[in-house]
């Protein structure tokens, strides 16, 4: 092995890398929020919705979970324009990522709602609570407690998965890496550094979620 590693050229690109990190984080936050909204609505439709709606949501979940994210992204970015819908790379990325995470969170949230025993709902009703009051006071908190671990690891996974948006040139951290690669020809070094940054982001997210879990559910 007589390769000489050189990280100096990459160090010179720090500002550019920081911009990429910011874009990746912004994409992650937007995706988490939209995924949560879609997932909540989807789960509600699956559990309480009319038959046709429940079936449609189930189909959405299956289609998304059984096809690759990158193909979904290509469909939104390259495919939609032929239907007259032209989106810039960032918008297309947010839409594809939100739809993708929405399917996974629908399943996670549905499982959480179904984990609450029917007897709990019944006990609430027997005290004269309305359906909404039962949901708000009896079901919601325990369901979140069940959902939280799976959902937070899904959030970390989607942060890592945002890297595919580089393939449609959305200016995220991974795309920044490919630009730096073409400027410096330091192929291995730049991808090693960027991988390290993703690892740090993933660990930070895990720690953050663990801290929130401790604060929210850590009585005693």
């Amino acid at each position, binding site marked *: 092995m007589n390769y000489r590693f050189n990280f100096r050229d990459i160090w010179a690109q720090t500002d550019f890398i920081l911009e990429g990190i910011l874009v990746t984080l912004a994409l992650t936050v937007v995706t988490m929020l939209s995924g949560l909204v879609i997932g909540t609505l989807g789960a509600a439709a699956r559990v309480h919705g009319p038959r046709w709606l429940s079936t449609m949501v189930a189909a959405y979940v299956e289609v998304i979970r059984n096809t690759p994210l990158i193909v979904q992204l290509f469909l939104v970015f390259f495919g939609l324009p032929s239907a007259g819908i032209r989106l810039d790379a960032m918008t297309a990325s947010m839409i594809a990522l939100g739809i993708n995470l929405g399917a996974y969170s629908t399943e996670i949230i549905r499982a959480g709602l179904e984990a609450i025993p029917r007897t709990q709902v019944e006990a609430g009703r027997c005290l004269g609570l309305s359906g909404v009051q039962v949901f708000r006071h009896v079901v919601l908190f325990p369901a979140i407690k069940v959902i939280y671990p799976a959902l937070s690891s899904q959030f970390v996974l989607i942060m890592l998965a945002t890297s595919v948006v580089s393939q449609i040139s959305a200016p995220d951290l991974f795309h920044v890496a490919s630009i730096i690669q073409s400027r410096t020809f330091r192929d291995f070094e730049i991808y090693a550094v960027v991988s390290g940054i993703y690892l740090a982001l*993933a660990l930070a997210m895990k720690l953050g979620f663990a801290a929130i879990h401790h604060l929210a559910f850590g009585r005693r």
Partner: protein
Amino acid sequence: MIREFAAIDVYYLLLAARWTLALTALAFVGGGLFGIVVALMRVSPFMPLRALGAAYVNVVQGIPLLGWLFVFFFGLPILASVQVSSWVAATVAFSFYAGAFLGEIWRGCLQAIPRQQWEAGAALGLGFGEQLRHVIVPQAVRVAIPPTVGFLVQLIKNTSLGAVIGFVELTREGQLTNAATYRPFTVYIAVAAIYFAMCFPLTQLSRRLERRLRVAR
């Protein structure tokens, strides 16, 4: 030259899907080997081994697959001082990646077997390896099959990223077809449908196996 998207293109896509399956198979074999080692490390009685296994899993799962693909694609030549084909780079990267996930799944299955089973083995005078081989693994395998089949679906979908290092599989073939026909919507719908046709039966199988397992208990 732009030409029409035709039945022949679907045929080519289907041919390319073979490479998706081939890469999945290679990654599953390679990842399975890594996975067995990691799972055993993580249940071993020696702390340093357990920590090493955990570190591997955390590092692999904390970095995007794209990152690993490029790191191996550009890193392997440095390590081996020769150019490697995208086949080699993709197989190594996917094996390395799948190993962490399979290792975690299988560790969970090993640990799902009650402690008393180990103790019962020990009480009969079996060593750690013998307890594993004769008592724990035979029981854990049954539990492991449904999530392992489920992971195969992840793996099939993930091979789509092999396209970025020039590995020609289904997604890459889709990009090439699109470049030739410029019918992106049709092409990617066809690509998605082929992935769905490969993944959905496995998803269903995994679910059915899991349900059967739950009933059997």
